[in-house]
Structures are given as structure tokens and as C-alpha cells.
């Protein structure tokens, strides 16, 4: 009797499982949603500009025209609009797939490749999109895989099981250069590695302590020994390749005598063992172009603090997500090692994010810095903005919320047989431009994507696959940060950069067969920027880039 009941229960469970599997949405099947033809333009708008953000409204004024009205001027609008998180997906698909989170695994874009399979833990497969509006990709299939260890990625390349890999370890660069079967591709993405302080914790609430450490670190020694050729000591937080990045005075030179005198005067004399105070150095053990050897650099900085200044610093490695969460919220009570790679080619991408009034990463924000940045951010003219950036950079140098250490060079590598291999300064390598000389291209990156809905992702490992299948209004060049039309043929601003009108490309088809129009643009942006949108769900729901690049979300709930 009991056996029969159990059998029935198991049978029921199996049946329920089969039914659920049958009912699960299959993105490769015929669309389970209906295409909505353009009849009336959609719009999304803030109730007023009092919410503090930049976006006042986004309107589809006709089938192929979208108008962005801003609350305040944004001369970097074009550079931001080309960024992968602002990719366009069909409005019908957003309505269908956002709530179920199907969109996280099966994006529907207009790009040269469409996602056909994501085998978790192993690979993502892309297939060339037959109806792509641009040039067809050389390889019919592209496979994205990942390996955390640089040596493992290189072995894949050397063995010919990968056509291109990201982030060659500094120690392997000479190996790649000496191998005639491989090509080394330097990455010129502007970046900065810095040593951050949180000024709400003692002793880093004392500007003299921060200044002394700035003068006590031998940054040249770090760059010479732990960075590949082509890296440089940072003279400013922002790399000089960005206009106005290097406005103002250069960073402090190493001066141990002055640094030690400053610590003495600040009330931190050495004890009998030569130690002034103890602290912690927090970091995450993740390879980045701005910090290729995080563990080694953490130990090196700890050594320098002890030997040069008498500061005992314990090295603490943290899990990446926890480190970012705590670091960016200003919760780390010691020194933290972090960096930044440019998302778009504008100085605001570096300075406004880190030193803006709302960023708690370095503790209490300094008005001497953010007021100058706010004054500069509304000026489209580089020369007119320069005096403000001089003020801001000099204030950063004086107040030392962090110490800029290096602008790191890094490199990807490809088989010599791959033609068209490149690494753009902004965004990711487009698989469609690579010709492996065979049907399938295999690309190996550092880690698995978190999700494929990049409106709500920030890590490069997720943005890379997104960029292959979901296109944005504009795109960056292969060798520069200059933008050109992608889904828009052009976007033009008014005189004070507060109204941007984008004319869309006609005849574009999404991977699901639906036609691209202005309402898709409004719906895609609304899902990210409007916290009240029913499609504002995403992966974590934070939509960081929408919030940060546009100074906040429309209809964000009050805390």
C-alpha cells in the first residue's frame, strides 16, 4: 500500500516535470508573442527633473526617430549611448521575457550573431544571423568559452583549440611575441589602478596620513616590476589620452623624508618596533588590465608601507563580489586596491563616477572636487571645461581620496592565422570582424558571463557576448572612441546638448524576425532607466550603468 502511494507520487512528480518542461518558453521556437506594428510612438518621462538625473524623457516621435530630452546638458551623450548596456531589444520580447527572466539567457538583438545555446559552466554558442543588415560575419559559428587562469587560456591558444584569448598574463607576453603561430594584440583601453582610502575610518580620516602614503609609495617600482611593457605611472587619475584627463598638477613624487615627517607631525610616531599603526590592504584576486598581478601588487604595497613608512598592513584577499560591494559602499576600513577601465571616452567616466557627490567609496565626498566636476560636466567645449578640471584634479591631489598608481597595458592574443584580429580601446572585440579561416571561431575569455541581459550587468565578461548579438544606437570605432551610427544612422544634439535626436536605420530585423522601430528603442531604454517600468527587472535589478551614467533612475523608489 505504502509502495503504491510512493509510486503514484513519483509518477505525479515525473508527469509534472514533463509538463513544466513542455510549457517552458523556448527562444528558438516560433515567437510565442505577437509583433506590434508601429502605430503610435511610445515615451517614457520623469515627472520632473527634481529627481536629480539627466533623462527628462525619451520619445518616439515617428517610426524612425527618437528624441532624448535631458534635464541638464550632457556633452558625453553620444559616447554613452554607444555603450553596450544600452542595447536595443524588441519591445514585444521585453514584455514577454523580462518578468520570466528568460531575457537573461536568451537575448534578442539585431547583431551579426544570435545566441543559440548557453551551456552553463562551459560555453555560449552564437550563429551568424542570416538577415543581418550589415556585412555577414566570416565564421558561421562563434563559440565563447572561458578559463580563469592566464596560462590555461594560453595553452588553449597554443594548442589551436582557441582562435583568440583575452588578457595574456604579463609573464606570457614574451612567449606569445616569440611564437610565430601567434599574434599579440595590445589593448589600449584607458584605465587606472589606484589605492583607495575611506575617509570615514581612522587614521585615513586625516588628510596628512593619506598625503604621506601618497609620497611614501614608490609607484615606479610597482610599474617596473609588476606591469607589462607599455604601462606607465599615473600622473593623474584619468589617463592623458582622455581630453582634460591630465589637466592640473602631476601627482606627488616619492619623498620618504617628507612622508615620514608628515606622519610624525600628524601624531603617528613609530613605536619601539618601528611601527606607526596597523591597517589592512583589501583586494580581489581578479586579473584586470589595470592590475594584472593583484596578489603580488598587494604584497608589494604592504612591503613598501612597512619598509618606507613603518605602517604594518595585513593583506586581505576578498571574494570579488563582496569586495566590490563593500569597497564601493565605503565599508572597507583599510586601504583597498581597485581600478577602472574606461567605458566611454570622456573624462566624466573617470572623475564624475569616483568623486561625484553621491559616491561613498572614499567616504565623505569632497565639495572641492565635486563642485568643480559638476561645473565642468555641462560644458561641451573641452577648452571651456579645462579650468574646472584643473581645479578638480588639483583638489584630488591635495585631498588624496586615493592614490593613482598606474595606467596598465594589457594584451589579448590570437592565432596568426586569424585575420582581422583586433582589440578596440572601448567595448569588446566584435567576433564578426574576425576571420579564423574556418567555419567556427573559438574565443576564450577570463570568466563566464553572469547574464546576457547587459542592461543590468557591468562586468566585461558579460558585456562581450552581449555586444555580439545586441546592438546599440551608436558604436565605437575599432581603433578609437569615436562613435558612428549602428542602429541609428545619426544622433544630433541641440546647441546646449540637452536634446538629442536620433534617426534610426530602416529595414533592420531582430533575431526573432520582428522589425526594428523607434518604440523598441524607447522600450529598451525604459526597461533600464524607469524604475517603475514593468520590465525593470533585470538580473539584480540595480541597472547600475543606467543609474550611474544618467545620474539616477526615473521613478526610483525613495529610501
Amino acid at each position, binding site marked *: 500500500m505504502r509502495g503504491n502511494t510512493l509510486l503514484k507520487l513519483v509518477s505525479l512528480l515525473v508527469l509534472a516535470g514533463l509538463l513544466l518542461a513542455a510549457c517552458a518558453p523556448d527562444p528558438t521556437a516560433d515567437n510565442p508573442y505577437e509583433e506590434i506594428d508601429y502605430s503610435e510612438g511610445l515615451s517614457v518621462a520623469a515627472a520632473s527633473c527634481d529627481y536629480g538625473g539627466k533623462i527628462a524623457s525619451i520619445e518616439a516621435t515617428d517610426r524612425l526617430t527618437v528624441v532624448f530630452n535631458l534635464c541638464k546638458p550632457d556633452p558625453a551623450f553620444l559616447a554613452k549611448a554607444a555603450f553596450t548596456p544600452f542595447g536595443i531589444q524588441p519591445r514585444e520580447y521585453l514584455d514577454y521575457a523580462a518578468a520570466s527572466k528568460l531575457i537573461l539567457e536568451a537575448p534578442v538583438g539585431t547583431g551579426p550573431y544570435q545566441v543559440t545555446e548557453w551551456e552553463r559552466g562551459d560555453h555560449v554558442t552564437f550563429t551568424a544571423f542570416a538577415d543581418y543588415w550589415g556585412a555577414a560575419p566570416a565564421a558561421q559559428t562563434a563559440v565563447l568559452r572561458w578559463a580563469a587562469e592566464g*596560462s590555461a587560456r594560453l595553452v588553449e591558444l597554443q594548442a589551436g583549440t582557441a582562435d583568440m584569448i583575452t588578457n595574456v598574463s604579463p*609573464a*606570457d607576453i614574451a612567449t606569445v611575441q616569440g611564437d610565430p603561430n601567434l599574434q599579440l594584440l595590445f589593448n589600449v583601453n584607458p584605465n587606472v589602478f589606484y589605492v583607495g582610502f575611506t575617509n570615514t575610518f581612522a587614521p585615513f580620516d586625516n588628510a596628512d596620513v593619506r598625503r604621506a602614503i601618497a609620497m611614501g609609495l614608490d609607484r615606479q*617600482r610597482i610599474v617596473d616590476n609588476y606591469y607589462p611593457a607599455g604601462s606607465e605611472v599615473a600622473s593623474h587619475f584619468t589617463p592623458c589620452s582622455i581630453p582634460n584627463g591630465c589637466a592640473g598638477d602631476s601627482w606627488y613624487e616619492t619623498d620618504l623624508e617628507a612622508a615620514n615627517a608628515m606622519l610624525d607631525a600628524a601624531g603617528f610616531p613609530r613605536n619601539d618596533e618601528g611601527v606607526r599603526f596597523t591597517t589592512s590592504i583589501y583586494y580581489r584576486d581578479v586579473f584586470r588590465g589595470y592590475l594584472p*598581478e593583484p596578489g603580488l601588487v*598587494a*604584497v608589494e604595497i*604592504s*612591503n613598501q608601507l612597512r619598509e618606507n613608512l613603518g605602517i604594518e598592513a595585513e593583506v586581505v584577499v576578498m571574494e570579488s563580489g563582496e569586495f566590490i560591494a563593500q569597497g564601493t559602499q565605503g565599508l572597507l576600513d583599510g586601504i583597498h586596491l581597485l581600478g577602472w577601465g574606461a567605458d566611454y571616452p570622456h573624462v566624466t567616466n573617470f572623475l564624475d563616477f569616483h568623486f561625484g557627490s553621491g559616491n561613498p567609496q572614499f567616504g565623505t565626498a569632497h565639495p572641492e572636487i565635486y563642485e568643480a566636476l559638476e561645473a565642468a560636466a555641462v560644458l561641451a567645449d573641452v577648452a571651456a571645461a579645462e579650468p574646472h578640471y584643473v581645479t578638480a584634479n588639483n583638489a584630488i591631489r591635495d585631498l588624496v581620496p586615493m592614490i593613482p598608481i598606474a595606467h596598465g597595458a594589457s594584451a589579448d592574443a590570437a592565432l596568426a592565422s586569424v585575420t582581422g584580429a583586433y582589440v578596440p580601446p572601448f567595448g569588446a572585440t566584435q567576433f564578426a570582424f574576425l576571420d579564423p579561416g574556418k567555419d567556427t571561431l573559438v574565443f576564450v575569455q577570463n570568466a563566464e558571463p553572469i547574464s546576457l541581459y547587459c542592461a543590468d550587468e557591468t562586468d566585461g565578461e558579460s558585456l562581450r557576448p552581449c555586444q555580439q548579438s545586441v546592438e546599440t544606437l551608436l558604436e565605437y570605432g575599432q581603433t578609437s572612441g569615436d562613435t558612428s551610427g549602428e542602429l541609428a544612422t545619426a544622433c544630433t544634439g541641440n546647441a546646449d546638448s540637452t536634446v538629442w535626436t536620433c534617426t534610426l536605420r530602416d529595414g533592420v530585423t531582430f533575431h526573432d524576425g520582428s522589425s526594428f522601430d523607434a518604440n523598441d528603442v524607447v522600450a529598451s531604454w525604459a526597461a533600464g532607466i524607469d524604475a517603475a517600468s514593468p520590465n525593470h527587472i533585470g538580473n539584480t535589478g540595480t541597472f547600475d550603468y543606467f543609474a550611474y551614467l544618467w545620474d539616477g533612475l526615473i521613478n526610483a523608489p525613495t529610501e
Partner: protein
Amino acid sequence: MTTPAAETLPAISQAAPSNSLLRLTMRRLFRQRNAIIGATILAFLILVAIFAPALAPYDPTLSLLDIEPVTIRQEPCIHLFGCPEDQAQHIMGLDGNARDQFSRVIFGTRISLFIGFSTVGLAIIIGTLLGAVAGYAGGWLDNVIMRLMDVLLAFPSFLLAIAIITVLGRGLQNALYAIAIVNIPHFARLIRASVLSIKEQEFVAATRALGASPVWILMKRILPNALPPLIVQATLSIAGAILEAAALSFLGLGAQEPASEWGTMLGRERGQVFTAPYLVFYPGFAIMLTVLAFNLLGDGLRDAMDPRLSQVSKR
């Protein structure tokens, strides 16, 4: 019940292991080649650990970047093998922070032996206490203690250690506690079994009849007779503890920088297997050598303390 006067007990105390048993065990032990090799390696490692400051040419935490013309991960330089005389000798090369690898491996001996002895020591103390109480008291106390031990044994020991560290936090000290905790059940079960067997023997009954207290009987009569299997288990467990500590440090959960712990050294340079193999070879070899020494010695002790195995080996 009163504790018997000390003068009434000497005759019975002969039941405890005597010097002759120790001598016999040592004689048997040193008849085995493997045990001699293990003991010799261990003696060598202990000497290295004691005299590490004298043997190591450099401070193991000192970066040589501004002291000598060196580069990070510099290859080994041995003058005897043709390395230029004007270049400083680093027989195991330099690590990723330009620290002398030889000095770090030498100081690593201290840490590894300390890990082995301290974790097993702690596990023995607690495990013996629990096992002895469970075995001697019996009843519900035995049930409670041994079921608790069964629960601990139900988890894979390494995963349990990781779980404990997750709660306590990273670091060598917490790793030591974690390894000690996962080793406790082995010693508790061993001691309980010995106690159950020994407490029924006549010399224990005689001591009890003389009015000795349970604690006295446990400490003076039963535990000394339970020592042989404990020593064997302890020796083998030290090898396991060193391996577990190295594995935890390799994963970044145990010893932290700048400690010269072999597992940490392996973990930090694991990506250099192809470009700087000497950075993973020497710490790995040191771990292997230490574990081998304890295993050989443990096997030898087991054979020496088990007359049946000695008989078999003689045939």
C-alpha cells in the same frame, strides 16, 4: 569511596607500558628501513625548522627589488652550476615579489611542522578526553558524544574544514582550529574503543576494587595502555593535517601573505607552472617530503607496535 594510598598501587602499575615495551618498540621500529628513512627525514626537517634563521640566507618576507639587481620570478642562480659569480646566489630562484624562494621554503618547514603538531595535539587532547569519557562512562553520555562524533565524520573532512573556516574567517589560526576539529572524531573513536577493551581487564578491576576513583583509573591505568594505537594514528594524522593545511592555504583560506607557508606559495604561483616551474616545484616537493616522512614513520610505528604485523613481516 576513597582514593587508595599511593603506596598500595605500585604492584599493579606494572600493567602500564614499561620501559621494556618502549625499548622493544624502538628495536622493532629501527629494524624497518622505511621507518628509518621517515625518521631521518623528519629529524632533518625538525633541525631545519629549529635552525631556519641560521640556514636561510635572506629574510623570507624581504623583497630584494631595491637591494639587489633582481627581477620578480628570477630563475635559480647556483654558482656551482655556472651562474655568474657577480650575481647573487638564489638556489631556488625568487618568487613573484622578488623574495628568496629558498629562504621561504626553509621557514615554511617551521610553519608546516607547527601546523602538524599543533592541530593533531589539539585533536588528541579533545578527542582523547571525549573518547575516554564516552568509553568509561558509557550509557547516555557515550551515546551523545559518539553520535556527535558520527555527525562530524559524516562530512568529508576537507569540506567540513572549509565550512568551519567560512564561519570563523580566513587565516592560519582558524585553519588550525578547523583541521583540529575534523580530526577529533578519529581520536575519540580510537580512544573509546581502547577504553572499552581495557576497562574490562583484570588489572583495572583490581584497581577499582582498591577504591581508585574513575579519573585516577582513566589517567593512570587505562590511557597509558591506550597509547600505542594513539601514537600511530597521531603520526599518520600529522601528515594529513599538513596536507589539509597546505590545501586550505592553496585555496587562500589558510595562511595569508606574507607567511612562508608552502600551500600559500603554491597557490600564489600556480599560474606559473609553465613559465616559472621552480616556484611550484620546491614548495610542492617540500610538502611531499614532509608528508612522506610522517607516513613512513607512522607505518613503521604501526608495524612495530603490532606484534601480529611484526610476525607477518618476519615471515
